[in-house]
């Protein structure tokens, strides 16, 4: 009897371990298939020409496969959106965690969660039909579908990530620190700025990086709102074509396993590497500066 139980025990343990490895397996499969379909493009262009080539004319004869303008577009929308989402996200997190009464916090928190739940295609649609004409009138520019509009929409997609992760970080700061600061005569504000924020800095940095990682990988918003011109932008009101937009809009027309098809997969590899880097940096910060009790501050 006991023996049978032990066998069940061991089987279940192994079974759960095998299933838990599914995520790792999936990650590797994604890499393998991306590379399998992306690498063949490098028979046509060198890695250097692909990444630093300024011209993306995949359907011309002969075609040009240079994705520099797509990379620059992705980085610029991400950075510009971060300028909006970082302050808004962190300030909101501080407000919920430190200042708002419990009741107010319980209203704002679900609102941020619902903001995160809005489908990206709806935000893209909103940016396209309402924000774009608005920007066009206000700034008197040829098109409202541009870098600035895309960044604005992306910002509201990364705010929830930045806000909720920052809030967790702020919550994990031990109360004794706050009490000590207040007891020394510091105001509530001074306590937040000089004690709570420094103590939760690593968690907030992780939040910011993950928020930016979400922005750089977001597809529908940049596909519908960024304007789609594969040019290196000179102003924030220029239309751009970030990497995900290029993949999403061209894959349907690229003939199966043509150079264009492989080039789009290779663009996917570049995008994948960017987000992987963001995630590894975030993971590194989270573990290296992990707060264990109060002694590590």
């Amino acid at each position: 009897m006991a023996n049978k139980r032990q066998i069940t025990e061991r089987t279940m343990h192994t079974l759960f371990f095998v299933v838990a490895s599914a995520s790792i397996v999936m990650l590797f499969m994604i890499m393998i298939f991306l590379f399998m379909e992306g690498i063949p493009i490098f028979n046509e262009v060198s890695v250097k020409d692909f990444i630093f080539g300024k011209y993306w004319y995949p359907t011309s004869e002969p075609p040009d496969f240079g994705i520099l303008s797509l990379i620059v577009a992705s980085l610029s929308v991400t950075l510009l959106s971060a300028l909006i989402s970082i302050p808004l996200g962190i300030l909101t997190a501080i407000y919920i965690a430190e200042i708002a009464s419990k009741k107010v916090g319980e209203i704002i928190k679900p609102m941020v969660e619902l903001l995160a739940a809005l489908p990206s295609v709806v935000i893209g649609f909103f940016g396209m039909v309402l924000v774009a004409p608005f920007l066009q009138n206000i700034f008197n520019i040829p098109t409202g579908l541009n870098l600035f509009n895309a960044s604005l929409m992306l910002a509201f997609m990364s705010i929830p990530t930045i806000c909720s992760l920052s809030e967790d970080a702020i919550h994990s700061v031990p109360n004794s620190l706050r009490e000590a600061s207040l007891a020394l005569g510091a105001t509530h504000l001074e306590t937040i700025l000089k004690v709570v924020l420094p103590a939760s800095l690593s968690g907030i940095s992780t939040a910011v990086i993950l928020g930016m990682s979400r922005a750089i990988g977001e597809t529908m918003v940049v596909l519908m709102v960024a304007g789609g011109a594969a040019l290196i932008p000179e102003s924030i009101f220029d239309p751009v074509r970030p990497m995900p937009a290029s993949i999403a809009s061209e894959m349907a027309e690229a003939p199966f396993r043509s150079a264009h098809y492989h080039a789009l997969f290779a663009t996917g590899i570049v995008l994948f590497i960017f987000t992987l880097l963001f995630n590894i940096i975030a993971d590194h910060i989270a573990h290296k500066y992990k707060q264990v009790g109060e002694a590590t501050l």
Partner: protein
Amino acid sequence: MSVSVPSLQRRRNFLQKIVFNVFRLASLINGLALFIIVYFIVAKGWKAINWTFLTQPPVDSMTKGGILPCIVGTLCLSIGAILIAMPIGVASAIYLNEYARPGPLIRVIRLGINNLAGIPSIVFGLFGLAFFVVWLKMGVSIIAGALTLGAMSLPVIIGTTEEALRAVPDTYREASLGLGATKWQTIYRVVLPTALPGILTGTILGISRAAGETAPIMFTAAVFFTPIMPSSIFDEVMALPYHIYVLATAGTEIEATRHLQYGTALVLIFLVLGMNLIAIIYRSRLRKRMQ
């Protein structure tokens, strides 16, 4: 000195008041953004909603008619995705929370999950195309789309399940083990039933997330238009998010179908936000009961 202390104190308090209002303003902006987006979609979309819109397929090259095939397609895809992701996700969370001991192995698994969560949706789309559609020869189909969405929802399910498992007090486990139950019996009979409401909440969130995704299904499941309802999991389908995108960017008459676009967007956010709201309310009640 003794004179300046009160005035310094006043200045500090004044500064605090101003800065706190800046914080308050920031959180208001978020709420306002949500409100404005939902308001415009509802205000412009509700006129398009009627019985025909909800129960008929599109007609006249998608300039008239309804969105029934899109609703059905989105339900098939998101429920299919969760049927795939839930068993794997829950089992992974059980391993991580109940069996695994801290060490390099678990660190690697967690790193894998975190990275999976960070992969852009369009990259999942590419993977689904290369692996499910082409390599496994599933073609553009519900099953290929559901598998792709399932892979994408996995980290969400693992995360919410882990939270639910962590909320089960250790005393429950100790009591069960103390009565002579094995670990598996404890998990199956004590831990899982207690954590079930939390796991279901996570599942609802997972379905709603999957229902709103566009990029992963663009190459794997969704098509511009199909006149027939799906009859098997190997059929291609229409889907709400993709329908919005198609009508708004590539339709034959973008301006003329504006009301249909708003209507479809309204149905989609009604589905997604509705599920989220249920999950959020349910979870906050659950948390209160736990305390």
